[in-house]
Every structure is written in C-alpha cells, then in structure tokens.
C-alpha cells in the first residue's frame, strides 16, 4: 500500500489535466476488471461483473493546483486557483507544470498576513525575461504542488492524498475482491476539486442503483483543532453529513452493518464544510441513494496531507465487504 500511495501521489494531475494519473491507473487495473473505459469528460470506469445491482464507486483522480493567468515583462507568472486553495498555504511552495517546468511561489511585500491574497503571489520559474518564460509556460497552463512523499511509519505524508488515497483504496479493493455480488462500476473521476463535475456526468451516464464515494475527511485530533469527532487511526469514517450530502439512511445502515459484521474499525463523520462526489451522484436523474467511506486526513489541501495506514486498510476492507455483499435497496 505504501508503494502504491507513493507512486499515485508523485503524479501531477490538477483538475482538468488528469491524463498521466489516468494512464497509471489504467495500467494498474488492466488485469483486475472486465472492462476499462474512459468517458468524454475523462472519467476512467473499471467495470467488474458480479450481480444485478449497479454499484458505483467514485474516487477522484484530480488534485488542487494553480493556473497561469498572465506573464509579466520580467517573466514572473501571475496565477489563479484550481480548486480550494488558501494563499498562506502557497507561499514558498514549489510547483510543477505538466511539461516538467518547475517554479517557486513568491509574494509581494506585505505588512500583515491578512493582506496575503492570491493576487499578491506569483510564480518564479527562474526566467530572466518574458520571452524566456514564454518558451516554457503559456497562459492557461496548470501546475500542481511538488512535494516529496514522506514515510513516517504508521502514517504517511504527501501532496494529493486528497484523493489519491481514495484511488488507492479502490484499486486495492478491486485487486482483492474475489466474489463480487454486484455489478461494480469503479469510477476514477475528474474535476472533483472544481465542483464534483466528473462524478456528475459519470453518474448520469451509468445511472447506478447506489453510489459510494471514497474520499478524505478532516479530523479534530490536532492542537486547538475544530471540534470534530474524526481521528487518525480510529478506522474508516462512514459519512453522515457534509455540505453536499446527507447520507441516505439505508446506505449509512448498510455500511455500518457491514463494518460491524466484519470487525472493521470505523467511526462516524459529520463534516460542517466540504463535499464529495457522492453529493453529485445522489442528485443525478430521479435520485440515487449514496454514501461515502472516508479516510481521515490531516492538513487537507496542503502539500503535506497525512493519513494513517490503519484507516486506509479499514477503508479497503469496507469497500471489499460492500462489493461482496448482495445489495438490495
């Protein structure tokens, strides 16, 4: 699992530019499903036959990033956000463009941190002129954080664990599942960070009976953290509510029962901010019951997100249990 997480998080794939990560997951899954398709939006759908009920899983491949809006005379790049980015998390970070160009984020002189907005920041790619900069980068190019993977033993740190850890859980579950009892549509979605866009069209195309998103959730287990019940190392989180979804009672019941029956460590999640692909899935067409299995994650939307491998393992086991349980709703 550590190796899979390391490789998944090392690939740059900001929203809208998921080509590299998609190719990686395609190669990883080609021997573990009946069919692999890519839809118009770029969602990767791994299908595995198993039963009557159409069960969609969704983990998003994209990560937050920055997009170049202008290149000034001296060759500095101005940029805007792709997904939810806070300026103070960007300052002095390194970013990598799709073509491999690297840059660092600098800030104009400010007297007070409160004045730090995206407009005060710029990317320095080491160019000495606009002409030189334009040979490497164009307006509209998207970059993502460049930050190494860190193995802390039971816990690992990397950029883009939101939601490569969800991708890893789904890949591992597909490899482990032996007797699927439902038709499995494992979707690796695009553009989640810019408004659940890939999941919306994937669900419309598939029209499943049940949708389950795999994503990360925030925790309340750090100094002076928001008062949240979720903790690292306490198991897979079964979501009850976030801004995009209130979990269908039967889906919450199903996941809870499966976790209890299989002795899978789990915790319940209420997240007063944020949303996941399940938010888009459940409002598709005439309505689709949906839920979320989350992996608790510290320092969300930073270049150093942290998860606990016990929670990852619990999430894999809960996904496999769901795949192997004949579902009727």
């Amino acid at each position: 699992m550590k190796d899979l997480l390391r490789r998944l998080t090392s690939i740059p794939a900001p929203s809208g530019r998921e080509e590299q990560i998609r190719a990686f997951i395609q190669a990883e899954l080609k021997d573990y499903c009946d069919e692999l398709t890519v839809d118009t939006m770029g969602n990767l759908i791994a299908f595995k036959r198993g039963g009557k009920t159409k069960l969609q899983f969704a983990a998003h491949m994209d990560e937050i990033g920055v997009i170049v809006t202008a290149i000034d005379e001296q060759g500095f790049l101005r940029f805007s956000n792709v997904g939810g980015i806070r300026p103070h998390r960007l300052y002095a970070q390194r970013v990598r463009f799709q073509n491999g160009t690297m840059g660092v984020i600098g800030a104009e002189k400010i007297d007070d941190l409160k004045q730090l907005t995206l407009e005060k920041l710029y990317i320095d790619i080491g160019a000495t002129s606009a002409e030189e900069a334009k040979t490497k980068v164009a307006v509209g190019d998207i970059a993502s954080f460049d930050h190494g993977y860190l193995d802390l033993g039971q816990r690992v740190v990397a950029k883009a664990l939101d939601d490569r850890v969800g991708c890893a859980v789904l890949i591992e579950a597909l490899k482990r599942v032996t007797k699927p009892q439902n038709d499995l549509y494992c979707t690796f979605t695009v553009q989640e960070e810019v408004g659940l866009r890939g999941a919306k069209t994937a669900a419309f195309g598939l029209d499943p009976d049940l949708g389950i998103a795999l994503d990360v959730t925030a925790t309340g287990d750090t100094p002076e953290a928001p008062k949240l019940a979720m903790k690292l190392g306490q198991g897979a989180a079964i979501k009850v509510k976030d801004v995009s979804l209130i979990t269908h009672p039967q889906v919450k019941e199903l996941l809870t029962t499966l976790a209890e029956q299989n002795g899978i460590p789990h915790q319940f999640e209420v997240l007063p901010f944020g949303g996941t692909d399940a938010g888009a899935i459940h409002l598709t067409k005439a309505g689709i019951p949906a839920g979320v299995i989350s992996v608790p994650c510290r320092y969300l939307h930073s270049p150093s997100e942290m998860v606990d491998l016990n929670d990852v393992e619990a999430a894999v086991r809960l996904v496999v249990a769901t795949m192997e349980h004949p579902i009727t709703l």
Partner: protein
Amino acid sequence: MQTEKLLKELTDAVGPSGREDRAAQIILDFFSNGDGRCWISELRRDRLGNIILRKAGQGEHPPRIMLAAHIDEIGLIVTALEDGFIRFSTIGGIDQRVLLGQEVIVHGREDLPGVIGAKPPHLQQADERNKAVKIEDMTIDLGLAPERMAALVRVGDPITIKRSCGTLKNSFYAGKAMDDRAGVVALVECLRRLKDYNHEAEVLVVITVQEELGVRGAFVSSYGLNPDIGLAVDVTHGEMPGLADYEGFKLGQGPVIVTGPPVHPLIFDKLKAAAEAGKVKYQVEAAETPRGTDAYAIQIAQAGVASGLVCIPLRYMHTSVETLALDDLKETGRLLAEFIMQIDRAFLEGLECY
C-alpha cells in the same frame, strides 16, 4: 381529518432534512388509510423519499401539473461527544442566536430529551455579554453520564427542537416546522377541494424532502416526473416590526403569488386570473433570487418546466415559533385548486409558443 388537526400533528412531528420518515408517515397514512385515500389515483415514494400523490386527469394526454411542498424541517446534528456533553452542527439554515435555552430531542438509539445550555450572566466576562454565542461553543446536556451517553448517542444522530404547535388568538398558529408543513397542508387542502371535480390536468402532488439543504428532493422528483407545469408552495416572510413594507406580507390577507426569476410570466398571470375567478384575496411578491424554494429546481429540470410559486405569509421564519394565519393556508389550497381547474391543453400550447 380537519385542517387544524393535520397542521398541528404535522408540525409537531419529527422530520429534519434527510430523516423525514416520521413526518412523512402522517401523509402516507392519510392517503393510504385515511380520508385522503379516495382523493388520489396513486401513491408512491421515490428513491430519495419524496412522496408522489397522483390524481388522474382527463383525455389521453392531459396537461401534467406538479405541485411541490417540502416536508423536511431544519434541525441539528451531533458532531462529537465531549465529557458528557454533545457538540453539534446544523441541518439547514438555523439561526444560532435563537438556540440558547431551547429544549431539544436527540434522536439517538432512542429519543432523548435535552437542553441547550448557556453560560450564566454572572460568570460572563464584559466582552462576552454583547456577543452572540457561536454554535461551535454550544453544547447539549442530556443529563447522562459519558459512558451511558456513548451507548445511546452516535456522531451523526439528528436533533430537533422540542416544540408543540400552539394557538394564538384569531386562528393564528405558532410552532416549529410551519416552513413548510403549512405548504404540505395547503396541498392536502387543494386535493380535498379537487375530489369533487373533474379537471383536465393530471395532478402530481409531491411532498419533497431535503429542501432546506438545497432543494434536493425537488431536483430529483421533477426530473423523474418531467411535468409540463410545476408550482412550488412554500412560505414567505410575514410582516413584523423591523421589516420594510416590501419585506413582509400581511397575515390573514391571503396567499402570496410570486413573480420574478423562478416564475414563468404566463403561470404568474394564470395564478392571478385563477385567484380573481375564485374570489381568492391574494398578495404579490417580487422574488429577488431564483433560488430558495423548490421552484428553482423544478424550473430547470430536464428541458425546462413552466414554473410558479405560491407562498403562505409566515412570521419568524426558521425559529421554533413560526407563526401563520390558518385562513391563509386554506385560501392557498383554494387558489391552487382554482388554478388546476383552469389548466387545459390550449393553455399548454400557449406556453409552447411563448
């Protein structure tokens, strides 16, 4: 069942967004075993819990009218257990300033009575006295020891305000969840009136879920039904001290017919014509935004639906003392029935050429 009784029973019932079952059961009972059984042709529930009550129209291709009112209410939800107290967040747009000192019911493994406590004024610092307490800093006390609480309450359990609907003078009613159980009762009134009439249009009354979380039930039910015309029935602000004239509508002066972004101009005109034909006193509101009611979801369902919005004036919205006049609710039902009687194939063709 009398209108008053249904309103009291419905508003007292528990049904926060996403967990509407207990309130919904009252409607299901009424239309499968009660008086309402003979008023409709079909009853069903969709996958997210919306209740659909269909009354057949006439002819092979009757105009199909969807009428929506939401049964969910705003509420609270357990976010963490802390030393025998409950931390909580909101379900829908709760005003945190009206929470302190409220009695609540925590819907754990059983219904548990609780109170939202407040720091005594004697112990407040000077700077605390003039500030509203934030919801993150409030807790619920069940009187239970931490171990016992952990056995009965889990993160994610819903919480509702405990409040029994009361009667004021002049047939005014005050209680929780009038938004929008009053609309639901108006739709029941509408069906009661229609039972003795033959109308060309097929009537699809939808008791929607999860409106308070972003008109979610209306999104999926209107997609599933794909009606020709859709009306949302909800509440609007009643006049009270501190509001400008245009912000509040008079209680007891009839339903409010809304015009603006969520409303098709021909539906607005037709609603006024129906009110005039039926001698229903009405008021007019200009909506400032397309969002905020089920009409928003209905309007943009599938290839688009000609939509309208009728509201019942309500004071103190999103508190546990939402106050309305019973007459307005009955008159709203009468207006909707009049509107349905007037819709025919020719009117639909007029919409298509709009």
